[in-house]
């Protein structure tokens, strides 16, 4: 598990538990104290503290100049972050819901992601684009997506998706210090917001000291010998729930949390499948042309992967927009039962 993490300093109280949002904010506050060039821009990030608590408490310490409310002009302010980053600052720009990417995507993928390449490396764009992702609370088709595949498909951005407070803090430190643009997607349901109760998993022990989690290192959140589940974000917890339930039936499930989609840790996945021979890929994004297909293909392509592989299933949102009413939303967003069924299927096959 996550061998690469820097050990917390000895005075770090690792028994302290934080919600994911507190852990993220702690990393941001630390980086802002260390480096005057770090600042945060977004809608409702100042007085409100971020609709999903992403900046909660930061205004008090850093003031309006560094925790900046901006007009509802995603193109202008995300592009302004690109310009400020190229001028040597380290902006964090928040897109309130990832679903809004469509109004600012040009600045994101044609400039933020490409300027380093198009300049032959003479320019770098050290910024973080944060966005809330995910459904499960009936906010319908324009406020419930994860869009993991959309961002991971287009080159030039690193894509981070934390599933626990511990990971969220370490990954955020790394994101802000990274000289490349990083898209940091946090799942609303994991944040520990008062009005949207989180499941148990994301609230974890978090060292008070800074630490980084390198990108491209998937984390084996549960070891197991029979079936490999590859997932990320909220669905790490749903997969763990399924795994616990299956343990009673003697099915031993390994759960891999990708943590970053770009870079993608295909080695950890391939090693696990070499052991189990059975793969279930779970995500909350649309099924086709996205994350699940890529993971399957990466296993098939790995040295010996095709031979190792005995059974595969994908569990994702079937290719429909997210519906509003509960029975339908519950149907399309995979839950622990869906994951459990898929694991049983691949386990039973052959």
């Amino acid at each position: 598990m996550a061998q690469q993490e820097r050990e917390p300093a000895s005075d770090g109280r690792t028994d302290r538990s934080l919600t994911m949002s507190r852990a993220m904010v702690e990393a941001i506050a630390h980086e802002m104290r260390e480096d005057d060039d770090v600042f945060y821009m977004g809608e409702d990030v100042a007085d409100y503290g971020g609709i999903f608590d992403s900046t909660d408490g930061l205004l008090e310490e850093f003031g309006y100049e560094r925790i900046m409310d901006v007009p509802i002009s995603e193109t202008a302010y995300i592009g302004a972050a690109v310009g400020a980053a190229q001028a040597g600052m380290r902006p964090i720009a928040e897109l309130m819901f990832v679903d809004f990417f469509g109004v600012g995507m040009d600045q994101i993928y044609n400039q933020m992601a490409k300027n380093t390449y198009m300049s032959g490396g003479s320019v770098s764009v050290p910024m973080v684009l944060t966005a809330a992702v995910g459904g499960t609370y009936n906010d319908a088709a324009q406020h419930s997506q994860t869009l993991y595949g959309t961002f991971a498909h287009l080159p030039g951005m690193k894509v981070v998706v934390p599933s626990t407070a511990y990971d969220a803090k370490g990954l955020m430190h790394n994101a802000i210090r990274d000289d490349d643009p990083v898209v940091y997607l946090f799942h609303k349901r994991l944040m520990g917001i008062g009005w949207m109760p989180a499941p148990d998993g994301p609230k974890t022990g978090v060292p008070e000291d800074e630490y980084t989690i390198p990108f491209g290192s998937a984390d084996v959140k549960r070891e197991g010998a029979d079936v490999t589940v590859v997932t990320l974000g909220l669905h790490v917890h749903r997969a763990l729930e399924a795994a616990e339930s299956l343990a009673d039936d003697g099915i031993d499930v390994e759960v891999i949390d990708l943590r970053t989609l770009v870079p993608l840790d295909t080695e950890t996945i391939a090693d696990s499948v070499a052991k189990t021979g059975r793969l279930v890929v779970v995500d909350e994004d649309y099924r086709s042309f996205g994350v699940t297909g890529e993971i399957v293909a990466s296993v098939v392509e790995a040295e010996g992967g095709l031979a190792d592989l005995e059974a595969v299933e994908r569990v994702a949102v079937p290719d429909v927009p997210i519906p509003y009413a509960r029975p339908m939303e519950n149907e399309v967003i995979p839950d622990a039962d869906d994951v459990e069924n898929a694991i049983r299927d691949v386990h039973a096959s052959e």
Partner: protein
Amino acid sequence: MVSVNELQSMYENMVTARHYEERLQEEYLEGKQPAFDISAGPIPGELHLAAGHEASGAGVCQHLRDDDTVTAPHRPHHIAIAKGVDLKRMTAEIFGRETGLSKGKGGHMHLFDPEVNFACSGIIAEGCPPAVGAGLAAKKRNTDSVAVAFLGEGAIDQGAFLESLNMASVQNLPVVFVVEDNDWAISMPKHRITDVANGARRADGFDMPGERVDADDAVAVYEAARAAVGRARDRNGPSLLEVQVHRRMGHFMGDPEGYRPDEDKAAAERRDSIERLEADLRGHDVDDETIDDLRDRAHERVEEAIEWAKDQPEPEPADAYEDVFVNPASGVTDSEPSVAETGGDD
């Protein structure tokens, strides 16, 4: 000059809208107790109520016909009501029921009633371009219908709105843009996000008339809208109208409003456009009894709609696979708009 009939019609729409919001608030919050949990209760998801915005919807829609198109933003109910959207099916939609306008797929930010050409959506200023498109269709088909795009003052800095002003103007389309200025974009006061206190000033840069109605005054809105809608209907081109309204509730239900000065909220309550219109009615010699009747009828309609909606069945899980083109598992060649192919996620 506005007629008594029209005043009464606006009043009825406004009282309906206000009571509707108050009742929805009750229903919504009741289910989220004791600790507010957004995913609990009879009304799923977010809810943006428009109490305090009524003068805008009523004053503008008074000039519209069923064949005129309206696009509304995330705070749509008062506009939908004034436009004549089916209140029962709209309410069922908000409660996520099978007989809702969208069969429970859309929810309160995605109300579509093609009978009266009403639609709303959840992305800031997103309805402006489709309103331009409706205007374009009217022009191409040589009808005299018009299109109205409603948006908040926080939306006037979004590209979709600004581009739409230009396109409507250069193509001389029958479109009216109505900005509902409630001084707040969630927690951001207007002055923090634009230097233009009067958003109607933007119109001139697109060679379009712009006017601001500076009070929560349904009659003033009605008059300004008469000119703008009339101009559109007469094929004289688009207009921009900014209307002062007030947000009497939080941005969404559950909004703690910690950012909002008490006095601001108190002022919103003082400036009640419904009381003002009531005074106008009395000025036109409408008596108490008539006003009470109008109000009672409105309340009754709301109660009926809510009762009906709550009685409606929920959709089946598998309904999720209908009403969209679904990438089929095999080479299905159907090209109908509504296809149910994919059987599930596992």
